[in-house]
């Protein structure tokens, strides 16, 4: 299904070259990324796959500007991220990246509207404009009638929709979804994937981090990570190939 409707690529959004990330755990240095090079264009729909311990989460944190690499080059929209300070990183996360988490990460005591408003507050948008924009985006994801509901009054799928609306609200360059269906049943998961597909068709750039093949199969490009390196990077999802790669056990580091 996904080999159809491939949208033409836009300019490069993410350009990383040979980045590494080391963590010091006690006496030991963990090499989470050992030199990853990757270019992601606007209008791409890319899945990053890999078993746990492959460096998948580290790469996602790096792409999401939550963390900076130990070495290597990272340019986001042509701007070098490696040298940004905390506040500059916060600004990039606010305006350029929309996060969708596995656990939704909504503020439990705030309504859908307040949750979606949050990135707009941090961007310094005026109150009336915020409500207008947040309501619009909530309506776009199909929650026009759930604006004043709190997360505990919503189903899992609706919660994830609120989270997606929150990710979209500042019109980011990329949407970074980390196991977006991990906490949902398969039917609801499919609905969320349909929403992401819809967003892709409307010109959004989507980066999907997952270890589930069914989910990765929605993307137009698949990147396999293993032991902190890119093992394979190819267009589409080739069931035989991708299944084979994913079934190789991780090397113990």
């Amino acid at each position, binding site marked *: 299904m996904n080999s159809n409707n491939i949208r033409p690529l836009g300019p490069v959004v993410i350009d990383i070259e040979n980045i590494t990330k080391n963590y010091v755990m006690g006496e030991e240095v963990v090499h989470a990324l050992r030199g990853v090079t990757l270019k992601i264009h606007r209008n791409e729909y890319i899945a990053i796959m890999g078993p746990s311990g492959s460096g998948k989460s580290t790469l996602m944190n790096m792409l999401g500007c939550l963390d900076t690499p130990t070495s290597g080059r990272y340019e986001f929209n042509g701007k070098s991220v490696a040298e940004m300070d905390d*506040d500059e990183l*916060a600004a990039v996360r606010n305006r350029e990246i929309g996060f969708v988490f596995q656990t939704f*990460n909504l503020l439990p*005591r705030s309504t859908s509207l307040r949750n979606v408003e949050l990135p707009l507050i941090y961007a*310094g948008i005026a109150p009336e404009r915020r409500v207008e924009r947040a309501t619009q985006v909530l309506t776009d994801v199909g929650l026009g009638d759930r604006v004043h509901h709190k997360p505990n009054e919503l189903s899992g799928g609706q919660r994830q929709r609120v989270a997606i609306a929150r990710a979209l609200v500042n019109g980011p360059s990329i949407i970074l979804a980390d196991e977006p269906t991990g906490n949902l049943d398969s039917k609801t998961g499919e609905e969320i994937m349909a929403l992401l597909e819809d967003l892709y068709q409307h010109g959004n750039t989507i980066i999907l981090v997952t270890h589930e093949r069914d989910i990765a199969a929605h993307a137009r490009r698949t990147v396999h990570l293993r032991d902190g390196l890119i093992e394979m990077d190819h267009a589409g999802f080739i069931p035989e190939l991708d299944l084979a790669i994913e079934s190789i056990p991780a090397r113990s580091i």
Partner: protein
Amino acid sequence: MKRFLYELSESWKIAAAQMRSNLTRSTLTALGVIIGIIAVTLMGTAVNGISIGFDKSMAVLGDDVLYVTQWPWKPVDDWWNYRDRKKIKTEYAETLNRMIAATPNSNLVIAVPTSNLMRSIKYGGNQVNNVFVLGTTSDFIVTSTIDCTNGRFFNELESRGGANVVMIGFDVADALFPSENPIDKSVLINGQLFKVVGVNTRQGTFLGLFSWDSMVAMPLAAFNKYFSAKSDSDVRVKVKDKTRLADAKDELTGLMRRVRGLPPEKKDDFSINEQQAFKSTLDPVKNSIAIAGLFITGLSLFVGAIGIMNITFVSVKERTKEIGTRKALGARRRTILLQFLIESTALCLLGGFIGLVFAYLMCFGIGKAFPSFPIHFSVDLVFLSMIVSILTGLFSGFAPAWTASRLDPVTALRYE
């Protein structure tokens, strides 16, 4: 700037929501601040009251009057140098007045002699002991805060003639005439009858300091006739312009040296005092009471602040994941810092406000029950305790808020 305002209002909303959802916890924590603010505010009203009492007592002396006395109004180490000084005579007042009249542009207005001693006063079966009996002239009224609402001060005629008339203080009148009007009644002092012409209005006493309430005043001529024996005398001189007190003092020193006939090489054998000198002796006492009191009550506020700090740390810990989410959505360090600072400040401000209301009610109650108790509630105190509450909030919230703002977003997001 605009963004800062939005973040600020957002932080207030979060703080309010947080307090609402953790009502018990917030109330208990705020209780520490409430008690602290009550303690500090009540101490503040007491310090205020003491200060006002001092000033009232000082006002009796007058801030535009110089006192010519044998002893200075301050502690002296070389008392033997003062002991042998000649006494101040009441006659000096007349000489001084002539000199003042002869001086063009004198900064002095008038000199008034006073003599005093302690005596008992009787009326009917009532007696008051140790009353401050003052002999002076009718000019005394210009140098003092005497205010007769009932009757009058004795007049010039009575003053010159040495008539047996007295003006009595409020407490004396109250003790001698519990149910009568004292005017035109005759009281017995030292075996002599004196007619009461006036009662001074109540001035209130404070910490046993001097007050007109427990004195009587009579013409100097009458005073000298009956009790000249062992009285102390001094001369009071009213100053024209109290902003030029030092000049007036110099002028009076010169006049007094002439009165005493001192050659230039001799030192002054008299002292010239003013309210200020007395004040500077008492002020350190007043200030140490204030500092000690506020320090001790401040400790209870400090305990309250620690409670707030503790609860804010708990709040940060509980919401680590939320902090991570906020950071992922673009909250900067400053935003997070502000959020938790405002949370602790809001709690302190609320506690401070409640404490202030309680303190006010307590003051009101104490004031009604014991009118003589020196407490004084003021608007300044309201602002002061609100500022203290805010500072307490900032102080106690800073460490946890700083910790929160420095959290690594990746670690915070992974926190369960």
